[in-house]
């Protein structure tokens, strides 16, 4: 048996054992339907195991690096406001919730929206105090039958946020989730789980920001489920700026009813190995989804974005633009699947992925997949991967702009198509700053 295989089993057994330990602490609660569901998810994880590159969905993303690190699964370091200074996003206002190594930190967090506008609780508390909401939504959207990481999260997640927006309410302040991994002392794994339920004709903005402290390895396996009722509207941003030893695997699963609108931007700036799944089911007429993405790997970073839009009902609309800037020996993956079901006539679906590769050592794999079973639809897709336009560089230099400056200006402009979509201004400004810094390197 080769060593990597042994460590694969070690890690898997460690995760299975963690579930058992949790279960033994539960007393009577292990009989609840909620726990039975988690047990089913665990069994599914056991059955599926971690995916290898022989798995079609993981062909270009090899997770085996995960097994070379030994992770602590349940660590709860205490952070002070002082520890967070370096991670601050300037001028950020609203409901700001901190999670450290996956655990909610009430003393660092601020919930400012009144409870009649929105109920924001941590996952553990919602399981105890709002079992109806949990039982009618938890694991209802994110499929754990096929995806081992979602199964693992469904079984082991013990914290995260649960947001419930009642009908006809516009939540004025955004909800910002700050997931901080403190890997200063040890290798840390966490499994955050979020659930967002937006009522009829209600509106909310939410951002998930992932950061790390320290240089040890980290592994975040996050799942966010979002259910939008009729005419609900949501802005959703996922922002990743993690360490050079960070593994991040995440699934955002969205379920949309009639006339609902979902706008998302996924911005990945740093991390060692990142896999984002964004899956949207347009299960209502005139439902609309907009997906933007920006990824900028350098060094040996690997960033993989998988998106899936399932047009299940007629007259729905989706539009997608992902952009990548790849440098050094980094690798990128974009896989965009559009599924149009037989009933989903008059579907409009547009997909575009554009990449700039700055070095001969960097590479990008793009794969659009359109599966169309209705006949009256408009769908288009396009991917481009190229170098920075030399003609544009020369044009700018001929006007007096130095080469590095011209290069940064062109790349910054390239990123703006995505960043300009972000409506939470302090987050957009923060990203613009980090993008500028990274382009200047």
């Amino acid at each position: 048996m080769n060593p990597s295989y042994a460590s694969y089993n070690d890690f898997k057994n460690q995760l299975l054992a963690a579930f058992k330990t949790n279960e033994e602490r539960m007393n009577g609660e292990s009989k609840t339907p909620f726990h039975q569901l988690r047990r089913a998810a665990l069994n599914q994880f056991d059955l599926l195991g971690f995916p290898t590159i022989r798995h079609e969905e993981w062909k270009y993303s090899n997770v085996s690096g995960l097994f070379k690190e030994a992770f602590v699964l349940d660590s709860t370091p205490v952070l002070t406001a002082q520890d967070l200074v370096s991670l601050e996003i300037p001028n950020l206002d609203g409901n700001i919730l901190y999670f450290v190594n996956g655990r909610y930190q009430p003393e660092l967090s601020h919930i400012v929206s009144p409870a009649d506008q929105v109920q924001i609780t941590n996952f553990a508390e919602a399981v105890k105090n709002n079992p109806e909401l949990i039982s009618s939504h938890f694991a209802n959207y994110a499929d754990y039958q096929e995806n081992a990481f979602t199964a693992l999260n469904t079984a082991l997640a013990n914290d995260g946020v649960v947001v419930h927006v009642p009908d006809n309410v516009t939540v004025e302040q955004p909800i910002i989730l700050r997931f901080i991994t403190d890997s200063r002392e040890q290798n840390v794994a966490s499994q955050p789980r979020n659930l967002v339920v937006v009522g009829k004709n209600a509106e909310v903005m939410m951002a998930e920001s992932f950061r790390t402290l320290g240089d040890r390895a980290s592994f975040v396996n996050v799942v966010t489920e979002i259910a939008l009722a009729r005419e609900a509207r949501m802005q959703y941003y996922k922002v990743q700026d993690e360490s050079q030893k960070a593994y991040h695997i995440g699934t955002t699963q969205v379920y949309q009813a009639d006339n609902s609108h979902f706008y998302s931007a996924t911005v990945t700036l740093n991390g060692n190995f990142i896999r984002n799944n964004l899956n949207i089911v347009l299960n209502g007429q005139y439902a609309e989804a907009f997906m933007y993405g920006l990824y900028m790997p350098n060094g040996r970073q690997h960033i993989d974005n998988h998106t899936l839009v399932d047009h299940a009902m007629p007259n729905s609309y989706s539009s997608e633009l992902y952009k990548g800037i790849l440098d050094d020996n980094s690798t990128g993956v974009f896989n965009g699947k559009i599924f149009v079901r037989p009933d989903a006539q008059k579907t409009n679906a547009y997909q575009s992925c554009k990449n700039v590769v700055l070095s001969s050592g960097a590479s990008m794999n793009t794969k659009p997949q359109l599966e169309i079973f209705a006949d009256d639809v408009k769908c288009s897709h396009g991917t481009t991967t190229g170098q920075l336009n030399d003609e544009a560089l020369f044009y700018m230099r001929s006007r007096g702009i130095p080469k590095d400056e011209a290069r940064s200006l062109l790349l910054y402009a390239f990123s703006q198509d995505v960043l300009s979509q972000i409506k939470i201004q302090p987050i957009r400004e923060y990203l613009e700053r980090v993008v500028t810094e990274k382009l200047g390197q």
Partner: protein
Amino acid sequence: MLSISNLQAFIGEKQILKGLDLEVNAGEVHAIMGPNGAGKSTLASVLAGREDYEVTGGSVLFDGKDLLEMAPEERAAEGIFLAFQYPVEIPGVSTTNFLKTAMNEIRKYRGQDPLDAVQFLKLMKEKMKLVNIDQSLLSRSLNEGFSGGEKKRNEIFQMAMLEPKLAILDETDSGLDIDALRIVADGVNKLRSPERATIVVTHYQRLLDYIVPDYVHVLYQGRIVKSGPKELALELEEKGYDWIKAEAL
């Protein structure tokens, strides 16, 4: 101001310029004419510093400095401006932002303080009148979706903003209708001054009705084979280039 001697340049394996000589003094307008493939655009590109060309011999002095040693941005800062035959579309960067960056980089090179927003806008308003260009065009992405005429007008607008010592117009007349041509030529003429010089590269005499040159040079097979006063352009228009080719042999 500009002194080119025995200039030789290759693109790939092919020699385009084969020993070109040219002297341009402040206050002068020189027209470079010649048949297709003579090397006209190559000359313009080599002077601006396009890296696709390899200079293998000769020298180019600009105000006594070795131009060939300079990066394109240094040449711009020294006062050279190339109006492109095919201006490049730059998505996401507005003309305003582009020009502000360019001007302040040039000012930095010259040891001057950057222009603040108020000074810049004032200058822009002044120069916009010169080429009859609309504000809305300038806040759009540079050249993106511009018509041929708008692109060329934008080139002349940039030239007016940057106030170069030596302007090189590369086939600025190509793709322009007569009204656009007149506006562009008008802009160029307003910028003429005793301190500045202009090189007009063109295939047709038409542009020279509006921008009247002091000297006309015929470029053929990589060298200047004939020079004369502005009347030479008319002669070329009438007789074509064949007699020059015959003379050159």
